[in-house]
């Protein structure tokens, strides 16, 4: 029986129907709106509430922060006067003039003004020292230096136009940036990338020499360090030393030697069990007791040690997670190949374990960078420590949002940048997994 002919089946299509476009309510802007904003009654209510919230908040915010803000004034009272004159009685606007006036203090603390080029150069060399670690080629260095030089050139043009001296362009910063730009273009090929690591490893000495001075440069006592300079000094030191120490602690915790293991576990659990602030108290009042009588020991150096130890313990736990996630076969394979313990760790285990723990490592870095603000509590003048002196100044008495907001924004950009880089790195390493 042939079955499916016209007499036994009620309806048979004899022609191919042309493809129909999707209903307009599911495509385009309308479809997107339906899908993402109004998919149900609850969602529609939530959407409307959110929009109401934004409408309530955003126009006022922009009016305050942008349209009615003041950039040049010498005190909060003057700011308010300018706003009242320009926008009428009762108008409210941001007084960014406080950032304008205190910018140098927020950046460099009490570092001597004629020596600002030294932290600047240190920062530029820091970029050059970081790029061989962070990227595959030196090209980002060329971009970064290009941006810096272009910015300086713009300022110089502005200075010429307004008749001011163009000293800003002929500073050591410019020369170093230009030299690094040339170096990145000439010897920045992938083949030579590893040589740049020499710069990375010598960077601590370069930075110490530039910031503290000594042989050729006038020495600057660290009591004059402050602002974001101090944040960077503590953050960069902590980040660069906590990773190797953390790796050693993690390996020690996994070690088969009981004494080493117990030592590492005790250290890690102790550090992780107490707040950073108590360790900073140790640095500020207790460390003097524990050193030989008469030792004069720089407070910032003491803080650096404590912050590094603190971050190392957290780092060790993150890396231990990575080591534990690695299949046992990898360890056994390293042994089978006849590699020594350190060879096996360096060539087989750690590259994989560190790759697994990248998100955790970067989170620890971010946490450390944020925790540098705690030094304000032991009376160091990092940006947070500068809040009170600035607000105690009669000119700026009563300023809150502008000052706190600016410092918070700088921290946000740094930390958010770090987390974006970690996501970029994860994607890159995942791509190399696929092959």
């Amino acid at each position, binding site marked *: 029986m042939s079955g499916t002919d016209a007499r036994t089946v009620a309806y048979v299509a004899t022609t191919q129907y042309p493809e129909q476009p999707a209903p307009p309510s599911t495509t385009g802007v309308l479809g997107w709106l339906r899908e993402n904003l109004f998919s149900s009654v609850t969602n529609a209510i939530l959407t409307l509430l959110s929009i109401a919230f934004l409408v309530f908040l955003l126009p006022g915010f922009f009016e305050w922060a942008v349209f009615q803000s003041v950039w040049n004034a010498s005190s909060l009272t003057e700011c308010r006067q300018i706003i009242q004159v320009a926008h009428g009685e009762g108008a409210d606007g941001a007084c960014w003039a406080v950032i304008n006036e205190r910018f140098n203090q927020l950046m460099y603390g009490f570092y001597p003004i004629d020596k600002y080029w030294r932290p600047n150069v240190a920062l530029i060399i820091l970029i050059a020292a970081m790029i061989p670690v962070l990227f595959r080629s030196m090209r980002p260095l060329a971009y970064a230096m290009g941006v810096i030089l272009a910015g300086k050139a713009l300022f110089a043009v502005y200075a010429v136009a307004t008749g001011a001296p163009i000293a800003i362009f002929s500073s050591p910063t410019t020369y170093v940036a230009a030299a690094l730009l040339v170096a990145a273009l000439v010897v920045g090929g992938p083949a030579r990338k590893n040589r740049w690591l020499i710069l990375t490893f010598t960077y601590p000495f370069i930075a110490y020499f530039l910031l503290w001075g000594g042989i050729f440069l006038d020495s600057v006592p660290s009591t004059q360090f402050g602002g974001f300079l101090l944040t960077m000094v503590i953050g960069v030191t902590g980040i660069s030393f906590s990773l190797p120490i953390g790796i050693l602690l993690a390996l020690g915790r996994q070690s088969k030697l009981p004494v080493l293991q117990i030592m590492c576990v005790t250290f890690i659990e102790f550090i992780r069990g107490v707040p950073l602030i108590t360790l900073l*108290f140790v640095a500020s009042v207790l460390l003097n007791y524990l050193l030989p009588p008469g030792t004069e020991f720089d407070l910032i150096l003491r803080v650096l040690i404590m912050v590094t130890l603190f971050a190392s313990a957290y780092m060790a736990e993150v890396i231990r997670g990575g080591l534990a996630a690695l299949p046992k076969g990898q360890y056994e394979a390293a042994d089978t190949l006849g590699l020594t313990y350190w060879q096996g760790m360096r060539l087989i285990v750690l590259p994989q374990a560190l790759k697994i723990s990248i998100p955790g490592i970067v989170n620890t870095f971010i946490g450390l960078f944020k925790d540098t603000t705690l030094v*304000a509590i032991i009376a160091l003048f990092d940006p947070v420590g500068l809040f009170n002196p600035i607000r105690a100044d009669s000119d700026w008495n009563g300023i*809150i949002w502008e000052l706190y907001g600016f410092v918070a924004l700088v921290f946000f950009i740094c930390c958010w940048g770090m987390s974006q880089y970690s996501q970029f790195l994860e994607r890159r390493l995942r791509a190399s997994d696929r092959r």
Partner: protein
Amino acid sequence: MSVAAGQQEPSFRIDMLWTDERYRSLFIQVIAMMAIMLGFAWLVNNAIQNLSDLGKDFDFGFLWQPANYDINQRLIEYTSRDTNARAAVVGILNTLLIAAMGCIAATLLGVIAGVLRLSKNWIVAQLMRVYVEGFRNVPLLIWILLIMAVVNESLPSPRAFRGEDGIEAGAIVLTNRGFYVPAPILDNFGAYIVLVVAALSLIGVFLLRRWSTAYQAKTGELLPPMSNTATIGVASLAGAAGGFILGLLLFGLIATQFSISAPAIFWPAMLASALMGVLVARWAATSLLSGLMIIILVVPTVLVFVVLGSPISLEYPELRGFNFRGGVWMRDSLIALWIALSLYTGAFIAEIVRAGILSVSHGQTEASFALGLRPNRTMNLVILPQALRVIVPPLISQYLNLTKNSSLAIAVGYMDATGTLGGITLNQTGREMECILLLMAFYLTVSLTISSVMNYYNTRVKLVER
């Protein structure tokens, strides 16, 4: 037999200590041990030397001497004539108070934000993303100081509530010196009876849930949906009453927040509370279990409360002179610390919750739908139990972080353990070493206790692998 005895036993050479597997590990450990012990001995020796040079000793006797300073925020009786030890206990209790308050608020915020970040609603998800990224990437200390400054400088001072044209003070008063909330008066016997009944009801609900789970496990049957009209009625009434009271509390708070006078807020608040009552009543009427739970929770307590002639009354804050008296005064420092810690930790918890929910594969949801479970049962029975396994350990470590971060209280003058023991006591007695050691011991105890609880939980919920 003495056959070539010299060849059998290779002579021990000194370099075998680090080349021979047999001796190396022992050798390394002995060296490490010696280095550590020498290091410790050196530190202790330095400390003894330094202390004796300064004419100090290592003695905890100062703990039993009068503290000679006041603590404004305290949970137990304390005067400046009490001992340093008691001051430290006041501080420790304050730490535990802020930690408990912070953990509860942060969990609520975090769970809501985490779930909403996964919402299909684009704008809500983006708003939550802004919240999470904003708080995670800015130091906590800045948030604490900012909120403290905002409370101090933008809220009205108690003086602004004075006189005819002053702001009308509601039941909850927000001033730049802190928040004043009504305090329950528990000075009679009836009040305790009500509290005991309420506690028993809570235990009853807990037992009921356990019993119904066991019943379902044994017979494979859920408690039937409600059929009896009378039960539905009582459950709905109880639900409506409970929801109404909850709504009044909630919207009363919102009303006072904006300093709206009582008549203006009365009807909207009533309406909102009634709506809340209806919602709870609807939920209570869905099944026997939820109905019973609401009945047990609400009915006995309300009955006892009414029968005993409302033994619990509220003491409202009242303006006397330049300040408010009565009620509970939550100081500005406590408020700033609480809000900042909750918002900051809430952002981290939101990410944990999100990761936990995402960790349950979509196949689980689909399988559950295929079995015919409705969305909320899918959430409760399939997704949450699996997600919790991922969520709880990092959640508890966030609680631990919050507790440790509460030591930042010292920046706004909230007298927690760091502020008393590590702050004023340390500065007044000059006993740096003793104070900091005690402080570390306290935080270590808390941390180790919480992590042992976490380890216990981890071993309990660990997947049993075959």
